């Protein structure tokens, strides 16, 4: 019974990409490939290729953007796809929506698939909103009569009624997105593919869009594939989540399970850089920062931080001297990725006393009840002083990555251009 419900089946999909400049040697490789084909041999460039790890320098100029992807989707499922940048999420969606073809493997589907890779595709500035709805709808695979029967709903949903007969070039970018999403929302494919659309539009529209997506999948039994970096909307929408890493499926399962696995697993590479061996320190060296990490409330080491949740930052600090050290101040200054100081944690602000015995190594823990940062990368500077003398000072000692979590407990997030800091608030 369950098997009949499978609407999409992906078998051994791989996708190879060529790195570097396409141009030099292209003709050469093409000829070589063609020569092998004539002799009935296998494509010589399919054998080479490395996993697609952006950070590591590879030796081959071919990489596998996707490697041996296998999964199935049942009708009505909302599958979230998460992963770091470059993990292969968008490539997978592109292959699924037939924008590009896989290097190997096969995809079978039982319904029409339509993608919403980026809304507003094919909008022409000189044409009116109404004309663009027709054109965009047709591009997405609707017929003229299908669109005509829905045009009123589409206009209503977009909230652009007043401007519908005005050329789109006069629209604000928000309005364009609304109109484009409206077209797509009234599209009736069996499988809808969405990539990061919800990052746009104002809050009211986002709510509408999420609601519409839930309607589509629950009420109308439509299947959705949803790619996002936004853990809040993934948590809110998806029934199942798949984590991609270096072009392979890392884990595929229930939403909460996969998200917490993801947050635990992905350590920022720079975090691993040994603080202990940093030479660019200032101060008299009586104290030394050896290491640092983050713990979640259960005391587990984690490396990806979700806004809104409680964490402990742990600093491993050693007293290099054989004296007992008193009157210690330890502080952590947090900077954003443009080196603007956002805030500072310091034991002299909280009036807590830290002392070190002779050659003692201590774990200094700083508890932060709810991470108030927008998603992004944050850097920090470590500072320790003893009796007002600087003992150790490491500028840019490390960084941490924050993912959007459910800070407001509503599944909603602040738009990325609306600041860096999240503050709990209530309206009365």
């Amino acid at each position, binding site marked *: 019974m369950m098997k009949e419900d499978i609407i999409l089946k992906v078998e051994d999909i791989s996708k190879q990409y060529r790195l570097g400049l396409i141009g030099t040697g292209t003709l050469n490789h093409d000829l070589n490939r063609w020569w092998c084909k004539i002799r009935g041999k296998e494509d010589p460039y399919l054998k080479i290729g490395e996993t697609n790890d952006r950070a590591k320098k590879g030796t081959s100029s071919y990489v596998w953007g996707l490697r041996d992807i296998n999964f199935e989707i049942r009708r009505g499922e909302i599958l979230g796809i998460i992963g770091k940048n470059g993990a292969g999420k968008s490539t997978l969606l592109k292959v699924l929506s037939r924008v590009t073809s896989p290097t190997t493997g096969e*995809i079978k589907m039982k319904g029409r698939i339509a993608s919403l890779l980026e809304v507003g595709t094919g909008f022409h500035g000189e044409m009116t909103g109404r004309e663009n709805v027709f054109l965009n709808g047709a591009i997405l695979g609707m017929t003229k009569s299908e669109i005509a029967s829905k045009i009123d709903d589409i206009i209503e949903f977009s909230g652009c009624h007043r401007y519908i007969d005005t050329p789109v070039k006069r629209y604000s970018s928000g309005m364009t997105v609304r109109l484009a999403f409206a077209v797509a929302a009234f599209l009736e494919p069996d499988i809808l593919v969405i990539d990061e659309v919800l990052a746009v539009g104002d809050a009211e529209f986002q709510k509408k869009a999420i609601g519409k997506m839930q309607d589509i999948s629950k009420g109308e039994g439509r299947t959705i594939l949803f790619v996002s970096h936004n853990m809040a909307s993934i948590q809110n929408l998806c029934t199942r989540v798949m984590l991609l890493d270096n072009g392979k499926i890392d884990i595929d399962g229930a939403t909460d399970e996969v998200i917490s696995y993801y947050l635990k697993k992905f350590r920022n590479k720079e975090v691993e850089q040994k603080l202990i061996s940093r030479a660019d320190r200032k101060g008299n060296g009586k104290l030394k920062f050896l290491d640092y990490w983050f713990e979640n409330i259960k005391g587990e080491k984690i490396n990806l931080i979700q806004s809104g949740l409680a964490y402990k930052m742990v600093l491993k600090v050693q007293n290099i001297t054989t004296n007992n050290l008193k009157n210690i101040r330890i502080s952590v200054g947090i900077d954003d990725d443009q080196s603007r100081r956002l805030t500072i944690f310091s034991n002299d602000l909280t009036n807590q006393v830290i002392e070190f015995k002779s050659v003692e190594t201590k774990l200094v823990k700083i508890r932060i009840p709810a991470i108030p940062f927008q998603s992004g990368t944050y850097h920090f500077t470590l500072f320790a002083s003893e009796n007002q003398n600087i003992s150790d000072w490491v500028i840019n000692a490390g960084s941490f990555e924050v993912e959007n979590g459910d800070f407001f407990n509503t599944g909603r997030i602040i738009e990325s251009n609306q600041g860096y800091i999240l503050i709990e608030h209530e309206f009365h």
Partner: protein
Amino acid sequence: MKEEEWLYTISSKKRLIDFNFKEIWRYKDLVLLFVKRDIVTVYKQTILGPLWYFVQPLLTSLIFTLIFNNLASIPTGNGMPPFLFNLAGITSWNYFKLCLTGTSNTFVKNQDIFGKVYFPRVVMPLSVVISNILKFGIQLLVFISFYIYFKYFTHSSTNALPQIEIVLLPIIIVLMGLLGLGFGMIISSMTTKYRDLTFLLTFAVQLLMYGSAVMYPISYFKEKLPNISWVVEYNPIAVIIETFRYITIGAGDFSLYKMLYVSLISVLVFLFGLIVFNKTEKSFIDTV
């Protein structure tokens, strides 16, 4: 369960001709909407607007008449107004040229949209050709008005008469469309990797015009340059333009064999273009 019923299969394997007419038919509305977009938006925010459709061929014919007929005195035949002769050549040449240049950048020009949504890619060049047929129709009207003017309001066009072969006009339009589309698809497929062709094209189109009997009759070329007359004689576009001129105003020669030759070439070029285009559309987005 052994063989399940799948609606679509996306596979890495490529067939030589993978032309799904049913699917293209399903996207017929899209073709029409693209045609509408092309026609409506070209001259938005211009003062003359659609008048530009008339201005360009008229001015070109005027200049050609001045340079090639008055200055270089290329004969256009007895009782054949040179202006009408040139206008016929330019009207048909323009149609071919627009089909070729319009389709030859299909992939590069539409990479944004192709990179996001799937629809049969051939819809794009197809709509370009259809909108060019409409533009050709407009220019044909201009040509007819001038024909009437020369015929009934001057005394110079004693011999300019449409021939019975004018019934072949639709075939000629289709053949030129196929040629333009075929070459356009080949070029657009190759430019995804080798951008050199874009530069070559503008240049080549200009040269091709001189080799396509636009401003001279084929017979005159044969008479003056007999050694290289094959360049024009076997150039399918030259044959089509000459035929167009013959059937509309009776200038030049007509040969059924040549027409068959051109038909064969056009169909071959079109089919080859289709194969290349199909091969490219699957993964051009990775190389474009």
